[in-house]
Structures are given as C-alpha cells and as structure tokens.
C-alpha cells in the first residue's frame, strides 16, 4: 500500500494511474500550442509555396513564384548578406563588451553580486521600445553625444542615427543581457581552485586567463554568440526606430511586406529564410560545440 502510494507521488515506477492523469493535465497546454503555434507556423510554410490570386486568396495550387523572385532579385541577396554581416558584427561587439561583465559577476559574491545581477536582468525584461528610445536620446542630432561634441566645439553633428551605426550600437546594448547570462552559465563550470593552482604555481594573471579561463568559457561564448546572432537577425523594433526606414534588413523587410505592402506570401517566404539562417547558425553551433568538446 505505502509503496504504491509513494510511487504514485514520485512517479518513479510505471504504475497504472499516472500516465492517463499526466496526459489529462497536459491537454490544455497542448491545445494552446497547437492552435497558437503549430497551426500558424505550418500555414506560414504552406503559404510561401502556394499559388495566390492578386486579391490575396489562395487558389489551392502550388507555386514557387515568391521563392523564384527572392532567388533572382539581387535586392534580396543583398538584404540577406547585409543582415548576416550586421548580425555578425553585433555578435562580436556584444561578446567584447559582455565578457568582462560576466567574468566580474562570476568573481563577485553576496549582495553586491545580486545587485549587479538585477542590473543585468532588468534591461532584459524592459521593453525594447524603451531602450531604443533611450538610444535615440543619446544618438540623435540633439542627443547627448552630439550636444556634448557641439559644446566641445564641433561644427556639425555626427550622424549616429538613421543609419547602420545607430542600429549596431542599439542592438549591441539590447542583446547584452542574453550574452551575459549565457557567459555566466558557461563560467559556472570554472573551478576557482584551478585558477588558484595556476596562480600559485607562478603563472601571471594574463596567462591564467588565456590558458585556463578563456578555454573553459568557450561553451558559454558559443551559446551566447548563437543567441545574440539569432536575436540580432530577427529583431526589427530597434532597426525600424534607429534606422528610421533607411536601414533595410531581413526582419524589417518581413514586417514591411506583411504590414505595409500586404504581400503575405512574400513575407512568409522571407520569414522562412530567417528560419533557414537560424538552422545554419544552429548547425554551426553544434559543430563548434563538438570541436571544443
């Protein structure tokens, strides 16, 4: 009796009651996921290869028209290349600014560490609109940087907004928390005693860093870079607001085709391309992870 009761709570044994109950408890979440996730995404994939009348209605036939358009128009190739290159630059910058923060957080303790963690994670939960707005206040012609430069005697403002520079700066900052959290999780594997041993044996700090800290944090770097790249290539709020309609990236094009031009099949095709880039990034990540063991 008691053994059966325990197994019912812990579910460690394959007892009779648990499986149907578990399935029942999972019904609501399954319904939400099927209606709100599986159905729309499947429909999106189908739409990108469907024949569509000019009214927007599907004829029921298949068509590769949008894929052909995207493959033959150099505009879309340039769009893809711009997006990938910009996202790579943003990833490298984010890693460079985030690494010292993560290492510092890893080494700090107690209340101070917790306060710093709040400062890292709060921006993550703050709307991208707010943070992009903050960047407008810093980078615009009447913003903090340019007003400062003018006060120092500059004759005209430096263009930091409505171009790729602004978008890169803004997105780098917006994606930092993801990178820091990934790095921090990776640094968790680092046993401080190994560092201490190296230092005790006479290794200078930079060598401890290059030979021990850096190699051990590689998995965190890989994960953080994957996350940042993937988020950079798919974000459009910041490119829209800081780019001011003058920066064309894959994600902003998806949005414009969907909401302005109302060419949903083309938007669907472009968004599938975003997913394909995701797939490539994920595959690369897997290979890198295997090679660093």
């Amino acid at each position, binding site marked *: 009796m008691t053994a059966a*009761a*325990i197994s*019912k*709570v*812990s579910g460690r044994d394959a007892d009779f*009651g648990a499986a149907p109950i*578990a399935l029942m*408890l*999972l019904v*609501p*979440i399954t319904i939400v*996921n099927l209606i*709100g*996730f599986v159905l*729309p*995404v499947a*429909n*999106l994939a189908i739409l990108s290869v469907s024949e569509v009348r000019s009214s927007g209605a599907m004829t029921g036939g298949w068509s590769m028209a949008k894929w052909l358009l995207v493959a033959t128009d150099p505009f879309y190739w340039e769009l893809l290349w711009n997006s990938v290159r910009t996202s790579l630059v943003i990833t490298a910058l984010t890693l460079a600014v985030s690494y*010292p*923060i993560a290492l*510092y957080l890893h*080494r*700090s303790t107690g209340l101070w560490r917790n306060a710093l963690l*709040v*400062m890292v994670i*709060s*921006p993550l*939960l*703050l*709307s991208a*609109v*707010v*943070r*992009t*707005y*903050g960047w*407008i*206040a*810093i980078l615009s012609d*009447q*913003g903090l940087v340019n*007003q400062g430069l003018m006060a120092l005697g500059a004759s005209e403002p430096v263009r930091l907004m409505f171009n790729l520079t602004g978008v890169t700066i803004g997105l780098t*900052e917006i994606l*930092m928390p993801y990178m820091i*959290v990934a790095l921090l999780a990776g640094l968790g594997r680092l046993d401080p*005693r190994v560092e201490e041993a190296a230092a005790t044996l006479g290794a200078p700090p930079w060598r401890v860093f290059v030979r021990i800290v850096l190699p051990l944090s590689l998995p965190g770097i890989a994960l953080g870079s994957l996350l940042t790249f*993937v*988020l950079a290539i*798919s*974000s*459009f709020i910041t490119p*829209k*607001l800081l780019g001011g309609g003058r920066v064309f990236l894959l994600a902003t094009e*998806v949005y414009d085709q*969907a*909401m302005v031009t109302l060419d*949903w099949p083309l938007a*669907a095709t472009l*968004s599938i391309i975003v*997913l394909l880039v995701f797939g490539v990034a994920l595959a690369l990540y897997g290979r890198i992870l295997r090679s660093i063991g």
Partner: protein
Amino acid sequence: MDERPISPILKILAAVGFLFLLAPVLIVVPLSFSGEVFMAFPPESWSLRWYAAIAENEKMLAAFLFSLKLATAVTAVNLFVAVPAAYALVRLAPRGGDAMMGFFTAPLLLPSIVLGLAMLIVFSRAGLLATPQGMFVAHLVVTLPYTLRVIATALSTLPIAVEEAAATLGASPVTVFRRVTLPMMVPGMIAAGSLSFLVSFDEVVLSLFMSGPRLSTLPVEMYNHVENRADPLVAAVSVLLVVFTLVAVVVVDRSLGLAKTFVR
C-alpha cells in the same frame, strides 16, 4: 575563494560595460523631467509637464489600461494551464517528458517576427485580428513557455520527501497535491506569475501584428509615438515602466531567486 582579488583592469572594463548597458535606461529619467517641446538632451528647462501629458493622452491611457487587463488575464490563465502541466511533467514524469517540454517551450525559440507573421495570417482569416481575443491568444502562446519552465524548475528543486511522507501517512494523491505540493509551489508560482505578467506587459512584436486602429497595447502605442514624433512623452512613460519592471524583478528574486530563474 570569497576573498579573491579582482584585477583593476577587469573592474574598469566591467564598469564601462555596465555604463553602456544602463545608459539608455538611465538617460530617460532626466529626459522625462524635460520642460522642452522636443526631445533634446540635456534639456534647457525642467518640468513635470510630460507626466501630466500622459494623463491627457487618451490613446496612451486606453492602451495602458488594456495592457494591464491583458497581462492580468494572461497571467491568471497561464498559471491554470502551466501548473498542472509542470506537475505532470516533473512529478508524474511521463515517457517522452523531455520531448514534450521541448515542444511546449518551442514558441520561445521561434523568432517573434516569424511567429507574429504566422499568427497574423491565421488570425486574420479567423476574424481575430485587432480583437482582445486574438491578442490574448498571442500573448498566452509566448508567455506559457516562461511560466512552464519556471514552475517546472521550482517544482524539481522541491524536496519530494515531504510529499512522500504525506502519501505514506495515507493522504490521497489529490490531498497531497492540494495540501503539500501546491503550498510549496507558491514561491515558484509568484515568480512565474510576475514573469509572465511582465513579458505580456512588455511584448511589442506580436502585439504590433495583432493590433489595429482601435486596439493597441502600451508598448505598441509607445512604438507608434516614437516613430512619428520626437518629444519626451515616451520618456515619462518609460520611467513608469522601469519602476514597474524593477518591482517585478525584485519580486522574482525574493520568491525564487534571479540566478535560479535565469542562469541555469
């Protein structure tokens, strides 16, 4: 290990990094007290006019109220759906539980621009575009993965011994859940609830796709405002949002711990 000195170079680099990270959040605070008509920094005069302007902006107020209602409804339904699911996955450990967890958290992996477009197309056919119902479903889909994961994490770290003891003493599974498991899950539920409230309240991409001229959320209204006008109004709204976010982060930290929730 507690007393390990941190090199001054690392301290400086980390300080610069933190300054960069917090710069856009820090700048909206003084900007919100600007007395100017246009956005300029530093402002030449100071006032509370932009806070007063929020109260006079009917669209912003309506969007704020809708966001509040939406986030509340989304959070409540989230807990009703996620608590049983987390219990089933963690405690009843059905075969293929890991795969199911992957499936249920998959909406998080999909870029929101793709998910937003996918929902736009399906919801427009169902006549759900720019309706509270459509907005609700969209928000439910993206908040559930957070709620499920946080509650599952909280549940898996709870000592199972107490539940086993109650069962050994003759409590039925339902009683064990109601009297033992559920009360122990309260901190996890508070953390998950605040998180889903915040994610829903701040969500902008899906909301942009789902909104219409007569229905928008606060972040969508802010986005539209920033796109069309450069005045300090959004700074004042932002300050309120920052305070709001900080409160929620502290609640998550107090109830479950930030490190446990975000750094796994």
